[in-house]
């Protein structure tokens, strides 16, 4: 039987607490706080303590979904990205860039958030970019 601990950063909010996933035989079993992490110093909120649950949840999305005729259909990443790009182009051409808004998330990294706003401003051409923490 194998047992190891994998350090990671909690993805539930922007605080960025350090956690350890307890991995038993290749499967995540629980989450514990990383004691030596400078941000949380061995403490977590209730969300961090339960971080492993969504990873093993049967409800977790493992492929992109595209809505067709009112229901979600499984799609590949290529299909999903193509579909999104085509639609964004179509909407931008027909209604103008300000008809599009981008909402980013505390659950992604600073760098990804930066890229998202760059994409919104430089590629789409609108200042309609906001963050879930302001909802």
């Amino acid at each position, binding site marked *: *039987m*194998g*047992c*190891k*601990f994998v*350090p990671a950063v909690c993805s539930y909010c922007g605080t960025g607490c*350090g956690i*350890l996933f*307890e991995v*038993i*035989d290749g*499967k995540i*079993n*629980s989450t*514990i*706080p*990383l*004691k*030596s*992490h400078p941000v*949380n*110093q*061995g*403490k*977590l*909120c*209730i969300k961090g*303590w339960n971080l*492993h*649950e969504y990873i*093993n*949840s*049967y*409800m977790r999305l493992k492929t992109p979904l595209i809505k067709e005729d009112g229901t979600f259909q499984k799609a590949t990443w290529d299909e999903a990205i193509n579909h999104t790009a085509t639609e964004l182009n179509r909407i931008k051409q027909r209604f103008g860039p300000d008809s599009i808004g981008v909402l980013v998330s505390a659950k992604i990294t600073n760098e990804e958030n930066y890229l998202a706003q760059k994409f919104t401003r430089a590629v789409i051409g609108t200042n309609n970019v906001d963050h879930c923490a302001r909802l």
Partner: protein
Amino acid sequence: MDIINQVEQLFIQNKIDIFLGYKELDGHLIPHGFTPDNLDELKELKVSENRYSLEKIATHLSEKDPDLKIGIIARDCNQRALNLLYTWKQLKPENIEIVNVNCCPSPLKPHPDCSYLEPKQSGEFKKEHGIDYNAEPDSLMETFNNNERFSRWMYEFNKCIKCYGCRNICPVCFCTECSLEHASLIEPGTLPAEVPIFHLVRATHMAGRCIDCGLCEEACPSHIPLRLLYREVNDIVSDVFDYKPGEGMEKSPFTIIGDDVVLEPKPMDFQIQGEK
């Protein structure tokens, strides 16, 4: 014999299937399970000043495989927790091999290897504003009257964010169903925490059970002096029943769930419904 050799011998003599110790990863000393199929890795075995409840990890492993033979680095607090887990049938003593390490300061080693005994990093604020982390219940009882103590504890409990960290990290909290999430006692998913019921329910459960490791207090984001609370509770248990949890293999006077406690895996595997 140094600890790496000691563990290697345990593997060679087939006494253990896995050894729970610490290793360094990206500058952090974290718990790790060393196995005989990767003996080279044993060179990285370390003792960590950061304490993790290795015995709680051992209970997770034996939930999956009750016959697994587990070696474990143990300070005094780990040893007390193991004793308690044996008496509550959460681990089988014949399946556990202990490698003792230094923790509290001693003539051999003046520097303690324990996060709790390190200079009290989080203690400064506390010294000025609240109950000292290492205060003894007796001195608290003498110094303050009932009303003062009550308002101090209510002030402390009111800071609770109901993270359940005190229970989650505790080596001796192993109930399949926890009262702290039982809707008729304490409603899960609501804030503020039920003060003082939440803390008093846990405090009564720690009577005859808390082995005074202090991990709960270290994990409490609100700096509530939980260790002091459970020390007070267990001072009473000691006075009335002459019982100190974890000191030996004697059963707690509160053992009312009988001999048939089974190791039921906690509901962490989410494969019950839907796909694998």
